[in-house]
């Protein structure tokens, strides 16, 4: 009997511990959001965190389609971008009429716009799933983007619609002129949206979305219309994408044609997929990492897109469930008494460290070679000296043999040394697994 009760989720848990388990994660998230600007306090860090918050909402809204409902969209930026324009117009209207609406409520306009366009375009595109849906989303994306350059009065031509966020009604004395105030605005909306989107996964509709993803045909035979499930999911996805777009417009005080473009749609796809679409946290991780990489990588190398592409392909080839998938693989070791968990993870990560050293050498060797080739071919005018990854300290002379030999040795030697560590990692993994199973039993 005890087996049975364990296997079936209980209807309601009311103890303190259970309560904390349910709400604890959100309390922790709130604290992290509150203190983050004190830890990463530079202007650029705060700007970056603002973009992360926007991207988290956007990527999660995308995952309502791809991860939850199995709809691959190439045009999700349409809802993000149109909402951004709606927001910019709304702000200008509020400024013009002096309506008593403070800035923190403006994202509601974005949400409404996202929902509206989600309903309109969802009605035509969610009739079918699979590749047909993907192609329709691509076509709609191109249509809206092209229209943005024709319908100038709404899209403001290529320069877009700008608005001054400080000219709205003050909100408890804040005018949102400084970036930090905008950060807290974004953080609050981000947290709210994440909680809502998480809650939606745990509703009848959320579960039916999963069912539609798995087997839309069978869904028809348990009383649900899979098209309507997709439609609602799509509209809700549009709503949250709208909030994200709205926050983006508030953040840079501008809505511009590129907001609805294919690059923006591609970015959210990359973020969601790299983070992993199978888990709720995946797109959050992906949004953080993709935002960070796209802002930071270009500081180190001109050919950052190449590295980004290679990283993306590596993830598709070797970690198809994304970064969150890699993390979740470790969940199975998280059992038994705390001390044994720590010991188990200690051993496992020890083996990773052993593997990481040659892997790092291999990667550095590869990067050195790529950078040197790029320097020779494209930067010959700057002379033979190359600042490796724009570092002022580490320079190499590309016209001498040493760095080339060093790069090749690091690449090949690193690879073989790395291969030799695989059995070590495999053994550590198996040991940990056996250990975890023992303590689980």
């Amino acid at each position, binding site marked *: 009997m005890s087996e049975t009760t364990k296997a079936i989720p209980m209807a309601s848990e009311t103890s303190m511990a259970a309560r904390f388990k349910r709400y604890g994660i959100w309390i922790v998230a709130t604290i992290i959001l509150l203190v983050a600007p004190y830890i990463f306090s530079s202007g*650029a860090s705060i700007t970056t965190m603002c973009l992360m918050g926007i991207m988290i909402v956007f990527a999660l809204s995308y995952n309502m389609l791809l991860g939850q409902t199995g709809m691959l969209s190439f045009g999700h930026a349409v809802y993000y971008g149109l909402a951004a324009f709606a927001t910019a117009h709304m702000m200008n209207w509020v400024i013009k009429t002096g309506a008593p609406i403070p800035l923190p409520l403006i994202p509601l306009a974005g949400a409404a716009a996202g929902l509206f366009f989600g309903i309109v375009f969802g009605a035509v595109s969610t009739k079918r799933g699979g590749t047909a849906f993907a192609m329709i989303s691509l076509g709609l994306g191109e249509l809206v983007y092209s229209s943005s350059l024709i319908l100038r009065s709404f899209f403001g031509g290529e320069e877009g619609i700008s608005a001054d966020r400080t000219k709205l009604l003050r909100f408890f004395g804040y005018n949102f002129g400084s970036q930090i105030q905008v950060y807290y605005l974004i953080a609050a909306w981000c947290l709210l949206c994440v909680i809502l989107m998480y809650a939606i996964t745990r509703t009848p509709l959320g579960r039916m979305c999963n069912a539609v993803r798995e087997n839309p045909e069978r869904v028809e035979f348990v009383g649900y219309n899979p098209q309507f499930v997709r439609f609602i999911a799509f509209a809700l996805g549009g709503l949250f994408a709208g909030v994200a777009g709205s926050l983006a417009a508030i953040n*840079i005080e501008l809505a511009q044609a590129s907001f609805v473009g294919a690059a923006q749609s591609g970015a959210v796809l990359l973020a969601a997929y790299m983070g992993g679409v199978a888990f709720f946290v995946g797109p959050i991780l992906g949004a953080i990492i993709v935002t960070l990489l796209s802002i930071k990588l*270009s500081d180190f190398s001109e050919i950052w897109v190449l590295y980004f592409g290679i990283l993306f392909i590596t993830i598709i080839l070797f970690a198809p469930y994304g970064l969150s998938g890699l993390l979740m693989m470790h969940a199975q070791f998280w059992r038994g008494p705390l001390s044994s968990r720590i010991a188990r993870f200690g051993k496992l990560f020890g083996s990773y460290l052993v593997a990481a050293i040659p892997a790092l050498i291999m*990667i550095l060797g590869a990067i050195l070679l790529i950078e040197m080739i790029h320097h020779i071919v494209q930067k010959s005018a700057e002379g033979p000296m190359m600042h490796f990854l724009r570092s002022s300290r580490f320079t190499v002379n590309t016209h001498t043999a040493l760095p080339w030999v060093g790069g090749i040795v690091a690449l090949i030697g690193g690879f073989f040394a790395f291969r030799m560590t695989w059995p070590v990692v495999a053994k550590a993994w198996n040991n940990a697994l056996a250990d975890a199973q023992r303590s689980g039993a």
Partner: protein
Amino acid sequence: MKWQLPKKLLGVAAAGMLAGAGYLALPQKTEAQSATIKIAYVDPLSGPMAGIGDTGLKNFQFILEQINAKGGANGKKLEIVPFDNKLNAQETIVQVQKAIDQGIRIITQGNGTAFAIAISEFVTKYNERNPGKEVVYLNYAAVDPILTNEKCSYWHFRWDANTEQKMAAITAFLKDKKDVKKMYLINQDYAFGHGVRDLAVKFLKERRPDIEIVGNEVHPLAKVTDFAPYIAKIKASGADSVITGNWGSDMALLIKAAADAGLQVNFFTFYAGGTGGPTAVKQANLANRVYAVGEGFANIDHKESQAFEKELRAKYGLSLFYPRGVNQMRMLAEAINKAKSDDPKKFAAVLHDMKFEVFNGGQGFMRPDDHQFMQPMYMAVFGPIKADQPFDEEKTGWGWSIAGKVDPKETLVPTTCKMNKPS
């Protein structure tokens, strides 16, 4: 068993993430007190427009090397720091923010009016909200008149002639070209293209009312593969000349399609001199048919600038695309010297109404009403180089010869700017 492969590669992923995290966590050094004056170059360095951004960067690197060789500014060296705006408005702002965070207080940018407006508005708001930490924006190529009219800012300075001035220059040149009788306008379908179109209509009416405009067309920006259908329309209209603001592949493809169809008309262009343009004209074999307007060309008979050009080509293998860039940086250095400070608030006051001997010779001045630089303009035509012309373009054996010079007073268009001067 299912996880076998990822398991082995988990190491690499973990290592990569660790390394990445470590690398990114490195503290950013701030350069407020350093011995160089840094200038952030915020332009596309990846993506479809990377070629243009890259060329500009090399131009500026060389310009600054030359200035530094002569002692830099206020005893400090000037350095250009590239920031990739990825042709995206949001990213542009982020990169400007990053630059400011690194202690950089001079921003330069040129590609794309949309981004220029974004930077100008950002910088203006930033300076308003952060007195004492002012940042200045030097615009070397974004030409929408709006930047020195409705949306002008004290913190924005433009060295390129704006669309209106360029059109004024073209039409000033057309005053004496009486063989031009039927004009066709073809432009890209976005703000800049529309600007060119509307201004062409306006200025032709004023200066050459006898010219008949036989066609007025806009085509989608950077989406057309084959211009043959457009050429067919131009041909059907009986035009003898074309005015176009096209740039990039839209320019190259237009010229090529014209040559393919055997269309022999004059092209009065803004950007035939841009990257890829000369190659296309040469391929199309349209000798002495394609005109470009600009503030300077390699073959202008001026010793100093030719020496400069020669050295740049020897070193980087490309031509000086931005003579205005030289003006911009030289004026910046001189303003810093005069102000004896690299604080933007101080040297901006010097730049505000500065007079300057421009790169190709002749007098130019910064108009204090709108911070638009006024300079002599040239019309040049592309064809096989003559004996006295030292420079060809893109290794085609063809080069620009000067067809006409337009005095600054011809391009002194009025401005509606009401500038807010900081106290």
